[in-house]
């Protein structure tokens, strides 16, 4: 077995040059995911989760640009590859699934077309073989009567089934890495549960690494091995699920967990984070959580470094909740 | 288009042929085309004179009877011989076509009885003495009785009934596009120089010229005035011009009531109609610089007019002078008539009916405004214009008229309007003078051509002295063809392929 991580992201930095100024959507982000591992990437809206995913896929469009860092897939550097080389990797070695199952499939093309083209774009096989692969992939994600379903159009599927089709497409070429960008946010809980089940099974079976982007901590809690928390473009905390969820060090992570209704007594006011996330155009200097942080002090006006403890639990804060190992469970 | 061989002629026509039935609609393009396939008893030469056609001679047997001697040995396209039977049939046929808006019955209605004296002699009787009958006969095409007897207009359009004696035989008709014909080798007269003739319909003038320049066609009619100069200078093409029978003039509302488009200078309606005063009309006539008009607006394609018929036409009065340009005299006359400061007037005219009609109206408006008449211009599409003009909705309206006899023209244009006699049907200005009526009547009932012409001249003299209409100019018809062709310009503006000759 290969000990190298499947994906290594080192000091990734992605910028958007807009008329109003430069937006650093992804700022100095590093993490890695090993074979069969699931990493949860959480954070609030606009914190740069999707852009991290797109950066890995090489799908950042103008005016966006990856301005620095390294992206290694199985040790191969992805940044600097030409467009054609990147295309070959995309959909073959790395796959991505998006949030809205209603929008990701082309409404006017048959499922079979959308599936086989993904095979044919990377493998020199015949139409028949590609169709065979598509059929198998559909069956694997639990779609009944896959042969008939191949001939259907997306609108003939429910939201959950469409998301499964998207997953099947992602799995077609047995990628090393799958990036899931909030694939269950638009679905109701029962459907979400099924998708989670299927993804988990597939990961176990094929050994693909998985990056699961979401802002729902509860999903990450049950699914992931490791978690990375983003705030305003930066990774503010990362570690194993136990480390981050049971003993959060960064005040933001802690506040996020605390604000979940299930962590609060019924009918009582929820613990809330006051204020708003800073505008990406107008980030405060130093700690970006400073304005909303109950522990903030003058030192927070400097950019906090990423501290790592011996167990690999990392955080970016001058005032981490270090010795409070207890869970403030309600 | 493939290069034309010597034996093929392609002609660009300016107006659409609506039907090939020679008795259906009396409009110039149809008549012009029918003349290729059919003959009439009496033909009209390029200068407008009557010459023998299917009849070799004609004479008035008595005051009310005309006799026509038919040409012998004339063969229809189907090989049968033309006889008096066919002639009588052809004269009867127009009255049987009830739904024609432009009926040929105008030329047959004088005939109260007709008989074939023998297969080559026909006698026609009129109710009263009627001089212009031979002229009328130049409008009725002789069709084959055998072919046309039970034929409908559709049969003519499809070619089935299209059996005539003319210089060409019918080949194909694509409505709105072209008519193809082939030479009639049995033709009794001069044989046409062309094996095949294709009459192409190109109604817009600039594209018609372009077709000539591009070699799509060999000859076009009605050359746009704008291009005359350039064409003249181009050695690859020849130009042919001929004063046409069409005269352009103003009808002036002469009724005593308030005239709809006459106002004072400020635009308020006038109670009295100044145009009813002959001095005012004369003043307006004097205000018009006909030389400038013909030279500039018509770009030389017109002759200043004093008559309502063109020079050389039967009944043209040489004694009448073109009204000289005299703005001072005009102003004086206006003052005399009680309008020293002029008045307001709107001129009406059609657009795209006569050569440069819209421009003529504007230019005349220019002239009028110089003698103090505040002039506005309104030009209308034909469909709107004629309806309104006929109901007398205009104060001054432009009209063009072509006829081969002055007495005809006078009857229609200045004769006192009368529904029962059919006089004055186009007398929009409602001019009325019993003396003129009397003279025209005398002319029409004279079977002696000399007397008839004298009456007509006298009538014209009176009417024009009183400025019954204000004549502007006679149009000049024009043809352009590639070098190597010759065409005798025709006064009736028709384009006859059989008269086009290679040089």
């Amino acid at each position, binding site marked *: 077995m290969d000990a190298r991580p499947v994906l290594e992201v080192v000091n990734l930095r992605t910028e958007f040059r807009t008329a109003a100024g430069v937006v650093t959507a992804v700022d100095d982000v590093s993490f890695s995911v090993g074979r069969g591992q699931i990493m949860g990437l959480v954070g609030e809206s606009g914190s740069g989760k999707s852009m991290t995913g797109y950066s890995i896929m090489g799908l950042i469009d103008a005016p966006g640009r990856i301005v620095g860092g390294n992206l290694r897939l199985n040790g191969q550097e992805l940044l600097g590859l030409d467009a054609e080389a990147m295309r070959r990797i995309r959909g073959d070695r790395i796959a991505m699934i998006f949030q809205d199952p209603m929008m990701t499939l082309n409404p006017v093309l048959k499922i079979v077309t959308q599936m086989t083209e993904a095979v044919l774009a990377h493998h020199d096989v015949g139409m028949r073989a590609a169709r065979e692969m598509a059929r198998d992939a559909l069956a694997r994600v639990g779609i009944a009567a896959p042969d008939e379903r191949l001939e259907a159009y997306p609108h003939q599927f429910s939201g959950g089934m469409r998301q499964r089709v998207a997953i099947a497409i992602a799995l077609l070429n047995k990628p090393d890495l799958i990036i899931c960008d909030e694939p269950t946010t638009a679905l109701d809980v029962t459907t979400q549960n099924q998708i989670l089940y299927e993804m988990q099974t597939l990961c176990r079976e094929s050994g693909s690494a998985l990056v699961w982007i979401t802002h729902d901590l509860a999903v990450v809690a049950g699914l992931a091995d490791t978690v990375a928390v983003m705030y305003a473009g930066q990774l503010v905390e990362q570690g194993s699920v136990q480390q981050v969820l049971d003993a959060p060090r960064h005040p933001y992570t802690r506040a996020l967990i605390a604000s979940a209704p299930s962590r609060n007594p019924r009918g009582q006011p929820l613990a809330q984070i006051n204020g708003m996330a800073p505008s990406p155009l107008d980030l405060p200097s130093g700690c970006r959580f400073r304005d909303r942080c109950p522990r903030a002090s003058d030192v927070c006006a400097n950019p906090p470094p990423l501290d790592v403890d011996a167990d690999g639990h990392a955080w970016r804060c001058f005032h981490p909740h270090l010795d409070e190992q207890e869970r403030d469970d309600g | 288009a493939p290069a034309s061989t010597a034996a093929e002629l392609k002609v660009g026509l300016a107006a659409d042929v609506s039907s090939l039935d020679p008795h259906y609609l*009396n409009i110039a393009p149809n008549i012009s085309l029918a003349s290729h396939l059919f003959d009439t008893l009496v033909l009209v030469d390029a200068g407008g004179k009557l010459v023998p056609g299917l009849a070799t001679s004609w004479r008035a047997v008595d005051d009310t009877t005309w006799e026509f001697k038919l040409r012998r040995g004339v063969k229809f396209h189907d090989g049968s011989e033309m006889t008096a039977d066919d002639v009588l049939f052809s004269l009867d046929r127009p009255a049987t076509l009830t739904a*024609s808006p432009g009926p040929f019955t105008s030329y047959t209605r004088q005939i109260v009885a007709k008989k074939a004296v023998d297969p080559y002699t026909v006698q026609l009787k009129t109710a009263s003495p009627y001089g212009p009958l031979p002229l009328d006969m130049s409008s009725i095409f002789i069709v084959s009785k055998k072919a046309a007897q039970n034929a409908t207009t559709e049969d003519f359009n499809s070619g089935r009934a299209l059996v005539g004696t003319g210089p060409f035989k019918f080949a194909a008709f694509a409505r709105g596009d072209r008519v193809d014909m082939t030479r009639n080798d049995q033709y009794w007269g001069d044989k046409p120089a062309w094996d095949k003739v294709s009459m192409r319909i190109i109604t817009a003038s*600039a594209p018609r010229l372009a077709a000539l320049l591009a070699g799509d066609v060999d000859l076009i009619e009605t050359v746009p005035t704008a291009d005359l100069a350039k064409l003249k200078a181009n050695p690859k093409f020849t130009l042919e011009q001929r004063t046409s029978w069409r005269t352009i003039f103003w009808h002036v509302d002469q009724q005593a009531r308030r005239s709809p488009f006459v106002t004072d200078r400020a635009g308020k309606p006038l109670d009295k109609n100044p145009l009813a005063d002959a001095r005012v009309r004369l003043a307006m006539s004097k205000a018009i610089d006909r030389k400038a008009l013909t030279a500039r607006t018509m770009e030389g394609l017109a002759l200043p007019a004093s008559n309502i018929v063109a020079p050389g036409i039967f009944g043209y009065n040489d004694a009448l002078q073109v009204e000289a340009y005299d703005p001072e005299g005009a102003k004086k006359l206006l003052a005399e008539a009680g309008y020293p400061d002029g008045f307001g007037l709107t001129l009406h005219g059609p657009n795209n009916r006569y050569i440069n009609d819209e421009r003529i109206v504007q230019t005349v408006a220019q002239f009028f405004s110089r003698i103090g008449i505040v002039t506005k211009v309104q030009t209308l599409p034909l469909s709107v214009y004629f309806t309104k003009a006929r109901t007398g909705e205009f104060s001054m309206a432009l009209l063009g008229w072509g006829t081969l006899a002055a007495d005809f023209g006078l009857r229609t244009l200045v004769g006192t309007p009368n529904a029962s006699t059919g006089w004055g049907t186009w007398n929009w200005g409602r001019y009325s003078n019993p003396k003129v009526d009397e003279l025209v009547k005398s002319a029409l009932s004279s079977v002696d051509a000399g007397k008839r012409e004298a009456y007509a001249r006298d009538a014209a003299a009176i009417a024009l002295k009183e400025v019954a209409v204000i004549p502007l100019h006679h149009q000049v018809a024009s043809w352009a063809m590639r070098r190597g062709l010759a065409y005798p310009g025709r006064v009736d503006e028709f384009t006859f392929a059989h008269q086009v000759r290679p040089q």
Partner: protein
Amino acid sequence: MLTFLTRRVLQSVLVLLVMSLLVFLGVYAIGNPVDILISPDANQAERAKIIAAFGLDQPLWRQYLLFLQNAAAGNLGRSFAFATPALGLILERFPATMELAASAMLLSVLVGIPLGLVAGLRPHGLVGKTIMTVSILGFSLPTFWVGLMLIMVFAVKLGWLPASGRGETVSVLGVPLSFLTVDGLRHLLLPALNLALFNIALVIRLTRAGAQEALQQDYVRFARAKGLKNSRIIGVHVLKNILIPIVTVVALQFGSLIAFAIVTETVFAWPGMGKLIIDSIRVLDRPVIVAYLMLIVTLFIVINLVVDLLYSFLDPRVRLAEAK
């Protein structure tokens, strides 16, 4: 489907009724056709006879009822000017106009879509901007002016193509068609281009807007995530989605194409029904005008039907019964 067709037929009948009534009123308001058509030498009696022969002496409402009666029996009347059945007259000219309009449509799609795609993919590039700027010419210059310019350049100056007329035709099932012969094609090219100009510009614009819109969609991003080649993303994913609005507008435009064929037909002496209708309007040949409009409305209905069928072909989400 049956319901849908029935609904269409009901609506069409209503449209045809209103339309014909409007034409009757309109022509009545313009003037009296007899005054225009009548022979200069005709007298009052002849005039009255003709007016009666055309039925114009009747009150307007009776003329209209009579027309309806005849129309129900399939008879749209005889042309005043041509003395032949009006419908036949129109149908005689119909193929030429249809051929011209269809060629123009084809041309605008064949030229417009590729250019529009290029402009849509590179909206800020030099090529894209040039295409958009030049395409404005299609909107700006009056058709008749451009037509004559085309004749000037390609027929008169260069002598490559004929200046006017329809050229040689081949009769297929009794319908004369010119695009089947070389000569016919040569005659067809300039007028079709002239007529197509406006629509080329329109299709370019639509395609560009559609492409830009489609490129923002998640399914395009997903297609890229699948590692598809650009050519496939554009040629299949984007194109098939933008065809829907293009088909809609182009079909709608077909009507105005036929209406504007009048100008092109005049300039190129193309023997289509546009020239016929404008002449008929000039002489107030009411039966022809009515027959023409009936045909056009029917054509519209057919086109709309075809578009709906195309929709369900292009867009599986649309089912016929739901189309309005």
